[in-house]
């Protein structure tokens, strides 16, 4: 008769059967259990918060109070909203994507697949562009293009002998221009990973058959990175819909070109004397309205993803990505990249640097230079302006926590979505995209409400006013972008590699850790860097969730600008940009910035 301390007996038809605990567990715990658990943990949180946003749009005030209302929705039927807010929002969204694609597409190819000189530096500068806050770039552009005071306006007016050149950015097209420039690096990084990983054998095959470089790019390279381009376009359309800083700066706050994002912001962040005018219900409505077109776009993105296997290019054979020589085209290509860098990075940095030398904004002139000083860079003064040394420590904690969490959950989700046949994987991927469809600020106030209610029910668990709540908000928000990168990278790896590992007896975890992750390491490092940068400069969620102890640097800089301390804000932005630029240059080799051969464990790295 069988029996052990951990076994129990069951008689079946007179015959005793022994079950061991591990057999029981083995029934319920499989190779997908842990990934499924962690994936649904974060995805469940996303769904819950999204539902809170939706729910808030149907209640008068707080979820714990009785009653429902449609008033927030019926308020939409105003001419102001239908004739101005909605059309402006669509123009801004579409225009932003077009501008970003115009610059990011060619730049991604030039910096990843050609022998363009200075590639590493340009890639670092692309990341630096990200770090410059949107509102600062907007301020710089206002000084450049403004019917009355614009430097470029006055220059062209002088050139053409006219009194003024009526060029202005205070309209949806101007906003799309500035936002498109601002989001180009994001699009660039999204496309770069897959573009770096293209198998040159395919291009060499085309070349052998007589195809020229352009035909090869159009017919071979471009279709292979198409999922990344389409995914990037959808992603940035959603981003543009929910961006607040640039439209507010360029005129939406003044009613000249209101968009959904600014309407949302002002409904949860009242001005002085209007604390009672806060309306989470209206914010919920705007959040849903921003999410709606994004969800439609998401559907089409998913359709592309379903055909992902056609784009697999990384196989079990070794390869080295090929660098194309540009020949005579080198100089126009260089000029194109430099033009973008100038428009998006150099110009704002020059304006930032100039503004940081003064207490109040001064137009560039020799006379103004005589009153310039480095007062805003005085460490004691700077710390006092941004909120004290604790702000720096909070920022460091956030920048370490968020990328680790984001990468962990991204790899988990992407692996299930792209590499397995588990049920509901399509739904999982859609849910991972959901935060990006919903404005970060809507998520933030939803998280705030949930944290508030949690404090009532679980008083020992402190979430409000901590760095953790900002980290959770960023985790949800960044997951979308990171999973696009990990999805796009994993798509390119053929299954034979994993199958070989399983045949040799490797468990799932080992296969992921020792085979998949090394192969997609450049993409993972990009994702981590990008997550860090976006978290570093993110301000609207952090501002809303800020308390006395969890303020971060971006909020300190924003509040300085908001209070009119333009010089201090500019100095803060300069310091942020310099610090991150240095870190990027030091960490670029980790990304394979020199196009080194990606190696499988034990591989010699030679061509087959």
């Amino acid at each position: 008769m069988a029996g052990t301390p951990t076994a129990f007996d069951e008689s079946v038809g007179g015959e005793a059967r022994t079950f061991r605990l591990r057999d029981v567990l083995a029934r319920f715990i499989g190779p997908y259990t842990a990934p499924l658990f962690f994936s649904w943990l974060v995805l469940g949180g996303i769904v819950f918060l999204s539902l809170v946003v939706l729910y808030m749009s149907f209640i008068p005030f707080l979820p714990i109070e009785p009653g429902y209302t449609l008033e927030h929705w019926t308020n939409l039927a105003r001419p102001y909203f239908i004739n101005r807010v909605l059309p402006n929002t669509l123009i801004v969204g579409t225009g932003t994507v077009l501008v970003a694609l115009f610059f990011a597409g060619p730049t991604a190819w030039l910096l990843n697949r050609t022998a363009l000189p200075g590639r590493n530096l340009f890639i670092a500068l692309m990341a630096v562009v990200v770090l410059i806050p949107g509102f600062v770039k907007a301020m710089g552009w206002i000084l450049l293009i403004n019917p009355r005071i614009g430097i470029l306006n006055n220059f062209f007016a002088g050139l053409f002998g006219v009194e003024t050149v009526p060029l202005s950015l205070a309209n949806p097209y101007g906003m799309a221009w500035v936002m498109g420039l601002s989001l180009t690096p994001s699009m660039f990084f999204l496309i770069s990973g897959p573009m770096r990983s293209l198998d040159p054998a395919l291009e060499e095959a085309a070349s052998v058959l007589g195809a020229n470089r352009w035909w090869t790019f159009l017919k071979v390279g471009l279709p292979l990175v198409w999922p990344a381009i389409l995914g990037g376009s959808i992603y940035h359309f959603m981003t543009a819909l929910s961006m607040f800083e640039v439209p507010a700066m360029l005129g939406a706050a003044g009613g000249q070109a209101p968009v959904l994002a600014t309407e949302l912001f002002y409904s949860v962040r009242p001005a002085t004397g209007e604390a009672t005018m806060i309306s989470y219900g209206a914010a919920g409505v705007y959040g849903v309205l921003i999410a709606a077109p994004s969800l439609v776009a998401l559907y089409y993105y998913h359709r592309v993803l379903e055909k992902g296997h056609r784009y697999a290019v990384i196989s079990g054979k070794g390869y080295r990505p090929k660098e194309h020589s540009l020949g005579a085209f080198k100089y126009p290509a260089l000029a194109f990249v430099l033009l973008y860098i100038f428009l998006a990075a150099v110009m704002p940095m020059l304006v930032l640097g100039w503004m940081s030398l003064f207490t109040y904004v001064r137009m560039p002139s020799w006379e103004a230079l005589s009153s310039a000083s480095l007062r805003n860079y005085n460490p004691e003064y700077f710390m006092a302006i941004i909120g004290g040394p604790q702000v720096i420590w909070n920022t460091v904690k956030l920048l370490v926590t968020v990328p680790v969490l984001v990468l962990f959950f991204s790899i988990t989700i992407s692996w299930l979505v792209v590499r397995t046949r588990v049920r509901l994987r399509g739904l999982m991927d859609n849910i991972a995209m959901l935060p990006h469809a919903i404005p970060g600020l809507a998520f933030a106030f939803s998280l705030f409400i949930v944290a508030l209610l949690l404090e009532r029910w679980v008083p020992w668990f402190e979430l409000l006013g901590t760095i953790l709540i900002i980290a959770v908000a960023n985790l949800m928000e960044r997951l979308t972008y990171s999973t696009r990168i990990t999805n796009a990278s994993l798509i390119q790896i053929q299954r034979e590699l994993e199958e070989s590992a399983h045949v040799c007896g490797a468990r799932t975890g080992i296969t992921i850790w020792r085979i998949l992750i090394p192969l997609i390491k450049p993409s993972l490092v990009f994702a981590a860097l990008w997550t860090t940068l976006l978290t570093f400069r993110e301000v609207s969620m952090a501002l809303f969730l800020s308390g006395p102890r969890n303020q971060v640097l971006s909020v300190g800089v924003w509040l300085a600008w908001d209070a009119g301390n333009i010089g201090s804000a500019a100095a803060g932005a300069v310091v942020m940009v310099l610090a991150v630029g240095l870190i990027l240059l030091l960490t670029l080799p980790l990304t394979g910035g020199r196009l080194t051969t990606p190696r499988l464990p034990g591989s010699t790295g030679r061509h087959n």
Partner: protein
Amino acid sequence: MIRKSIAATLKLSGILTVALALSGTPAAANTDGKKLLQDLISQAKKEGTLDTAHITQLGPAVPALKRAFNKRFGLDLDINVALGDQAGKIAKLLITLRAGGRPEFDTLTASDNDLIVMAEKNYSMPIENWRLLLAEINPAVASGKAEPRDVSPDVVGGQSFVWATRTKALVYNTDLASESTIPQRIVDLADPKFKGQFTVAPWTDTFEQGIMVYKDKAEWLRVLDRIGKNARGVMRFEPALNRILLKEFPFAFMNSAEYLGVKAHDAKAPVGIHWFTDYTPMSLQMYTLPRGSRHPAAATLWALWMTTPEAQAIFQKVSPQENLRFGQSDIDQRSIAEIKKSGSKLVSYLDSPESVQALKWWATDEGAKYRAKLKSNITQRQ
């Protein structure tokens, strides 16, 4: 002669005795006040921490304020001061307290029209024996230069404490405009001849006090609608001031402290200030303690200490936030003199019982709806 001096002494003694009787027992009150203060300080020591907020303009003054505060009371508190976003903080606080949560801040500053909401909804915590404590902490009150009700007006008595006032005026670029070419009254902003020459701020308190001067609320909304249509756009005070300095447009209606701040940094800056002849709105900036504050003793000390000349001397060095209610500094006296000279009428919510009613009215549903219409007229967001 001796009889006369004895008679005088007796008379003085009698007067003093009556005075003492009428004032209660000041000697005993002083002892009570000292004891109360000592108890409060002991409690604050046990609390060890203070979470509070201040306006961003005073950020550079925060380290000095913390040091001076701790030194004044013999404390070594860990003080966290979050800067900026006053209205956002109050809005979150209202929601937190409404949901039954604990406030993140032990004490925070806001303007009178936000704090009246807290008082009306019983969200502010009244400080017991605040008059005695105030007399111990604020030498201006102890010496009689300021009355307790100057520091904590009756309508929010013992719950909120004034540390500064905000007056609004027209700030203009002297290269683009002069006293004779700018609007003389607030209602003149609706004059078509000033179209596109100014911006308006997105908040309502710039124009709210107009209902106390112009009385007809419906007509005031129409005036504000015309002003909103006349404005070249909506802009906060600080960026508007920057644009004025850059000569993008000639003037804007904003806090006088913005003008004073520019002049403090650059006396030659081409900006001037005009006090409107119909009225000059003044709001009070006050510290309040929300109910459920985690460190109430420390918060009480901070809120009361911020009203003192000592605190004012520190922050006025960094940003010239006036106190036209009971301040005695040079900045305060200069501004008071200039307003008097201009003939402008200073209007605040605490001038009279009628104005107090107006302040309370804003906290009602009707007031909230009116405020929403006022905002949409100013900003032209219908």
